[in-house]
């Protein structure tokens, strides 16, 4: 069996290995340089550090106020994601279960959001946010991110909810569940893998977004991690240790989320629902 598979599997593993290297080398360089003394970064950028120092991390966290930026980024990302998952799954439940001309138009409206980049509307968004007085505040970022994430969430979740056998909803309704109960006790647990997909899909662009904080936020109190990191790269000088430490820390929440959610992909939760 191993011999028969070898030709194609070696080729595909080579491709995957190569791709992993392309992705991992910059991450590795970032990590080792973040724990080096300042001068060594330039003298020996790819070698292992001669002595470990967490000066950069401490420096970024305290003096650089990354404690504040992290808190801001976490609040924005978590609140936006929860709203995207909640609103997106409710919309998807409605779109999947009540088919009519209107629901088709709404569905296409959501799909259109996938194709039109939200940044095209930046100036209008800025006007709206300013008129609401939400600029310089996290409140201004959250609705924009929710709008940005809803199309993909609605699209993925609608497809998923349509694949849940209708008898399950009917059975719950017969047993006395209200529509809300059907959504909460039957649909939501069954679409957990899809919710995980949507979470990962939306976390990256929200966590990494620099565009909207750069435009909406000036107050230090409302800066996000990416905005904070961008400010470390000065025109004349850059504190590399601090910048690389901040970047390394910024990668951690995304990594943790991915590790937590990826197990959900594997679970085939709908198995055994109905006769296949």
């Amino acid at each position, binding site marked *: 069996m191993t011999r028969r598979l070898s030709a194609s599997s070696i080729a595909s593993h080579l491709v995957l290995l190569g791709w992993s290297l392309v992705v991992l080398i910059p991450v590795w360089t970032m990590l080792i340089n973040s724990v080096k003394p300042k001068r060594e970064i330039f003298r020996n950028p790819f070698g292992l550090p001669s002595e470990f120092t967490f000066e950069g991390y401490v420096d970024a966290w305290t003096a650089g106020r990354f404690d504040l930026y992290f808190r801001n980024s976490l609040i924005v990302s978590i609140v936006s994601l929860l709203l995207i998952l909640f609103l997106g799954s409710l919309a998807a439940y409605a779109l999947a279960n009540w088919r009519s001309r209107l629901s088709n138009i709404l569905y296409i409206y959501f799909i259109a959001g996938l194709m039109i980049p939200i940044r095209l509307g930046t100036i209008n968004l800025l006007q709206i946010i300013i008129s609401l007085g939400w600029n310089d505040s996290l409140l201004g970022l959250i609705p924009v991110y929710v709008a940005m994430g809803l199309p993909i969430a609605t699209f993925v979740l609608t497809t998923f909810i349509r694949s849940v056998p209708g*008898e399950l909803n009917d*059975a719950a309704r*017969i047993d006395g569940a209200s529509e809300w109960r059907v959504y909460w006790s*039957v649909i939501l647990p069954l679409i957990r893998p899809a919710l995980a997909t949507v979470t990962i899909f939306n976390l990256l662009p929200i966590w990494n977004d620099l565009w909207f904080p750069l435009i909406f936020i000036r107050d230090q109190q409302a800066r996000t991690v990416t905005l904070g990191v961008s400010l470390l790269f000065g025109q004349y000088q850059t504190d590399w240790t601090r910048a690389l430490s901040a970047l390394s820390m910024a990668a951690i929440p995304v990594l943790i989320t991915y590790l937590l959610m990826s197990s959900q992909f594997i679970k085939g939760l709908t198995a055994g629902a109905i006769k296949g």
Partner: protein
Amino acid sequence: MAEIRIENVFKYFGKVTAVNNVSLTVHDQEFVVLLGPSGCGKTTLLRAVAGLGLPDSGRISIGNREVTYLPPRERSISMVFQNYAIFPHMTVYDNVAFGLKMRKADKAEIDRNVRRAAEMLHIEEMLERFPSQMSGGQRQRVAVARAIAIKTDVLLMDEPLSNLDALLRLEMRAELKRLLADLHTTTIYVTHDQIEALSMGDRIAVMRNGEILQCDAPTTVYDQPANKFIGGFIGNPPMNFLLGQVQRHNGSLHVQVGDYALKPAPIYDSELKRYDGQQVVVGIRAENMEAMSQPAEDALQVRVMVVEPLGSQTLLTIKIHEDIIKLATHPDFPAVPDQDIWVRFPAEKIRLMDPQSGKTLLSS
């Protein structure tokens, strides 16, 4: 007391009339089977009673309450689905308890009812399992247990056995029948399997093209089908049909099939007069003909084409005039292909039908 009254119900899907002016009364504690080929509207009608698909017009009441447009949870019904429809993310216990929890029953009551239902379906050992760890037959038991855990007025079943293999179906059929007799609920049971309908129902409502053609006790539906479709749909082998002509011999009316003159039962006399000289369809069940190996009075000589021993009976394929029909004999009956036998048609077992409409000449 829960009588289900369906009055003049219509349901359309686009231009298709799925349920066409159906009226049916299911008495308290009665077990009525909706039987028909796929696409005849039986499931649509059941869903209208369940509240899962509202009728376009008509009235449905359960007990003394009109429920036509009420949501399912206000109808005091429970239902078993063809695809089991048990929740894969819940244990068997939680599945069975779901309805009770929705009704906000207290913990002790939930537990008592779940265990009672599980015991009735013999799944008390599996309460902690998940559906994916169970076989199809066990899942269907869970589905039935969930439906009977809440004591509702009405139990609806939509082809509950059709996903099981033949042996399991046979076993579950008898078990369900006993179970339902113990429960004393009013039941509507949808199936396309005529054996299931005959063996389980107090009454069978035969449907086709959205209409109920006949609603009677199983033996009546079997022996006295209201029309040709029902005779051909129910029974294995189906009822035989021969084309004959009504003729007058010596003042009395006969049905002439080829060169054989059938004398129908006297109750047909008045109806037959209207068909004098015209064609009628003669319907007779395979087991109602008498086969003999010797010539006898009133018997028709026919040639055996095929012999099919089925164990409990032997099926003979014979040709009478233009029509090829099946005849069931005792397995000991000596018959070989291309042999001549003699067949007698007992007058009281013959059904006469109109060749155009298919309707039985006698409306019983």
